[in-house]
């Protein structure tokens, strides 16, 4: 490991096994649909079979008559139940166009899966049986399936908006006016590429589930939801239904994966709450997998045009990007902002002048709404710049690694103020890339390739790389304000030392597989000198952890974890006053290490934190005016994003007769600064890589021309199995972040951000001898065959 700073950590950096595991491994853990909720009615949602249609009439008579059915509602029936439409918290421009979106469609359906009617029944089976008995008469309208067709406005999704264009957001940064144009005019080399980021289905293994439990008196309601965002859900539910916020409690029980798809406020959550209040009984709902494919948000969905200008040495002189972002039928919680999260990253890890021209237009289609999916905007950006870099290297006739070396931001340049005005906190791209190249035996693979890929070769070797930056740790609140985001980016923590010196850490983050309970206890243990097993971590219940902004955007550690460290500092500061009082010295004379305060120079005059905790509890002998108890709350607003980085390299072989891609080696060198628990960090990297690799090789939400999703089950949508993917070779460099006291950066999305372009660069590299210069993802046997055919007919 490259250590630029040695920290005297004892707990941080160890591979502590996860405390979450025993409950999950024995079946004790309760996911939302495992909860026993006596008397609950079951919700089922009738969904539109058409991508675009007017609702002419709905006949609910037969469904209502079915035994077990309690009520059937249409969108029109429930209109008065909503205080406002479903929320979009990120109006990216002042003139952004947004259709009104209600939990059930009122007169027009806009995608296959759009909710049309809600059934409440005494059993799940009865609720689903009743779905078949509702008769809906539709007037079918033309669908809008293709993004570039949507841009023409030939068919408009939402008549009332008059256009399919929701917004255009520009980021043009020029040292002197017109310098981007000049750079392209004067460039020795340019490339101009078009990439399609196919829609992906997040496919968390646990589908969504909700239960809303009203109190019989007083109007309070508890919402259990498989969500990443209990705090945001609480506020948004209160606003959308018009319930006083203090009467809403949200609990996220065990949550079976999210990947961004549970970073949302969904129709079914609002329906359960609204109908539970209306009927004054609990209402629950669980999503079927095919519903999940249609009614949970999709990821990606962009057409990208990227142009690079470079001088004769390959040094980048300008970057120009045009994006069409597929919003789908409606704007969900942060739909329009997703492309913006990548907007700053289309120059990748390269030192470019102030010559950057980015523009994104968000358009409506009659497809499932898109929103955050692991990486959210950043995998798309990284894919575009990193595959375009390979295209540039091919054009120049140089090795793509060499081209990258000529353009990397050098380690001496950090902290590096980029063209965008953002400051990259720390990095050493060359070190990570060279380490990855060594691990992948880069030079040897190139030599082998020269021998293997002769014109007659049917098995072709390819090697591809990606060097990435992840802009994560969302986020400095003021930066979010400048992007028009509707909330801040802080995170809150409370640290409470109980009378017996056991500790409660309360966090506003909301884990769904990331092991926060383990890692957060390690942070508090390191700070307080109290063993991790004596520290409990409380989360994901707005009554227990009332302040928080939840888990997404690789923010939990660099924002939430740092908040915990800050709360520990406040507790230590207070404990120090008590120690000074009882040891009869001044607080400045005390030092704190290993959980013990001692007088500098006289270590035998000391008092452990455990003893102080009891003193703070009895309050018999505290300094005048000091409040009893040891508890502190701290809210941390990060001064900067965190900027993890790294290099991934993939070596693969393609059988050009079958189109089959076989990965021989996948190497990742990631740098997320200081690692709290390397075991968990590695797990995040592994999972992230396979999700990115799956975009490159397997996954694609396929629609037919009528707007029907043809991949709505796990039999059709190819989430890879163990047998489809390789073992991974991972290692790390450690470049601490200077912007927070732990030196940490996020790691939840890094693998996904690096992987897709790494694999696709290797695929193109393998086939470049056949004249292949481009292939749309996924590199399925069919796409491989098409690309080879296109190349051979072009030559």
């Amino acid at each position, binding site marked *: 490991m490259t250590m630029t700073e040695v920290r005297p950590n004892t707990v941080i950096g160890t591979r502590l*096994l*996860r405390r*979450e*595991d*025993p*409950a*999950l*491994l*024995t*079946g*004790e*853990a*309760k*996911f939302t*649909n*495992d909860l*026993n909720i006596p008397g609950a009615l079951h919700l089922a949602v009738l969904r539109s079979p058409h991508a675009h249609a007017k609702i002419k009439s709905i006949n609910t008579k037969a469904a209502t008559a079915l035994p077990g059915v309690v009520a059937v509602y249409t969108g029109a029936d429930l209109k008065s139940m909503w205080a406002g439409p479903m929320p979009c918290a990120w109006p990216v421009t002042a003139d952004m166009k947004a259709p009104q979106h209600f939990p059930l469609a009122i007169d027009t359906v806009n995608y296959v899966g759009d909710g049309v009617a809600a059934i409440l029944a005494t059993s799940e089976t009865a609720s689903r049986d009743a779905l078949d008995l509702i008769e809906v008469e539709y007037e079918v309208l033309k669908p809008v399936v293709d993004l570039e067709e949507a841009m023409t406005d030939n068919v408009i999704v939402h008549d009332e908006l008059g256009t399919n264009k929701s917004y255009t957001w520009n980021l043009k940064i020029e040292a002197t006016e017109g310098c981007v144009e000049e750079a392209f005019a004067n460039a020795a080399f340019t490339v101009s590429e078009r990439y399609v980021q196919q829609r992906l289905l997040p*496919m*968390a*293994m*646990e*589908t969504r589930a909700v239960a809303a439990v009203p109190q019989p008196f007083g109007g309070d309601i508890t919402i259990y939801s498989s969500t990443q965002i209990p705090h945001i859900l609480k506020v948004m539910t209160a606003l959308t239904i018009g319930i006083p916020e203090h009467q809403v409690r949200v609990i996220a029980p*065990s*949550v*079976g*994966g999210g*990947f961004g798809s549970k970073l949302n406020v969904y129709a079914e959550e609002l329906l359960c709450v609204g109908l539970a209040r209306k009927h004054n009984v609990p209402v629950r709902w669980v999503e*079927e*997998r*095919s519903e999940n494919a249609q009614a949970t948000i999709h990821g990606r969905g962009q057409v990208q045009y990227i142009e690079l200008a470079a001088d004769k040495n390959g040094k980048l002189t300008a970057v120009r990007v045009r994006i069409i972002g597929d919003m789908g039928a409606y704007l969900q919680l942060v739909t329009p902002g997703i492309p913006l999260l990548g907007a700053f990253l289309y120059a990748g890890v390269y030192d470019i002048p102030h010559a950057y021209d980015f523009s994104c237009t968000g358009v409506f289609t009659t497809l499932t709404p898109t929103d955050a999916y692991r990486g959210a905007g950043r995998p798309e950006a990284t894919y575009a710049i990193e595959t375009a870099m390979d295209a540039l290297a091919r054009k120049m006739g140089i090795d793509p690694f060499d081209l990258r070396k000529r353009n990397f931001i050098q380690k001496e340049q950090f902290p590096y103020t980029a063209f965008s005005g953002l400051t990259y906190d720390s990095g050493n791209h060359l070190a990570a890339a060279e380490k990855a190249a060594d691990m992948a035996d880069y030079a040897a693979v190139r030599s082998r390739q020269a021998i293997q890929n002769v014109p007659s070769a049917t098995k072709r070797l390819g090697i591809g790389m990606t060097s990435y930056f992840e802009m994560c740790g969302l986020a400095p609140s003021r930066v979010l304000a400048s992007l028009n985001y509707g909330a801040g980016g802080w995170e809150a923590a409370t640290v409470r030392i109980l009378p017996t010196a056991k500790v409660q850490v309360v966090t506003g983050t909301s884990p*769904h*597989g*990331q*092991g926060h309970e383990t890692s957060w206890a390690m942070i508090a243990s390191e700070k307080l000198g109290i063993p991790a097993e004596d520290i409990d971590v409380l989360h994901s219940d707005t009554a227990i952890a009332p302040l928080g902004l939840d888990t997404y955007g690789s923010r939990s550690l660099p924002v939430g974890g740092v908040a915990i460290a800050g709360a520990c500092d406040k507790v230590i500061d207070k404990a120090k006053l008590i120690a000074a009082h009882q040891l009869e010295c001044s607080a400045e004379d005390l030092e704190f290490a290993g959980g013990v305060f001692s007088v500098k120079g006289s270590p035998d005059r000391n008092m452990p934190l455990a003893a102080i905790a009891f003193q703070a509890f009895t309050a018999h002998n505290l300094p005048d005016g000091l409040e009893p108890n040891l508890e502190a709350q701290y809210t941390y607003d990060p001064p900067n994003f965190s900027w993890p980085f790294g290099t991934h390299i993939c070596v693969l072989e393609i059988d050009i007769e079958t189109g089959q891609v076989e990965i021989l080696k996948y190497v990742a060198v990631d740098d997320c600064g200081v690692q709290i628990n390397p*075991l*968990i960090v*590695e*797990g995040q990297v*592994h*999972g*992230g*890589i*396979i*999700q990115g690799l799956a975009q490159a090789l397997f996954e694609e939400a396929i629609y037919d021309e009528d707007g029907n999703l043809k991949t709505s*089950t*796990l*039999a059709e949508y190819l*989430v890879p*199995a*163990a*047998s*489809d*993917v390789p*073992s*991974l070779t991972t290692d790390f460099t450690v470049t601490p972040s200077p912007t927070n006291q732990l030196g940490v950066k996020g790691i939840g999305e890094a*693998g996904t951000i690096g992987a897709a372009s790494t694999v696709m660069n290797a695929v193109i590299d393998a086939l470049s001898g056949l004249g292949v210069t481009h292939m749309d993802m996924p590199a399925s046997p069919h796409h491989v065959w098409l690309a080879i055919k296109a190349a051979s007919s072009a030559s």
Partner: protein
Amino acid sequence: MKINITVNGTSHDGEVEPRTLLVHYLREHLALTGTNIGCDTSSCGACTVHLNGESVKSCTILAVQADGTKIVTIEGLSKDGEMHPMQQAFMENHGLQCGYCTPGMVMAAIGLLNENPNPTESDVRQGLEGNLCRCTGYHNIVKSVLAAANK
């Protein structure tokens, strides 16, 4: 219809609708919610249990078809407060993250080692192809199963 199934060593007499799937019987009639449901096409394997000692996806059989059989679910693996060696191996090798696929994955992995006590990495990957995981990328799951085999 009346059925009798021995689940985790306890005999249960039950009355089910003919269309009740075994997984629903376990979850709803016996409150054994450790067995999860992840799909509706028998693709994901989250509901894997052992039926007369063999791994089966409990969404692929009806409760009435399991009449007279012995079922073991994830809740039935620990003995005397100790986790099964496979559960321990998953914990020690970080073979789980969100934990939703985990019960099915552990049951499938035990079934795999019952059939092939000394698998290669490739055997493990092939043997678990009916069980999907979205979090781990399988790397540490494979490691866990190989570690359990070597115990």
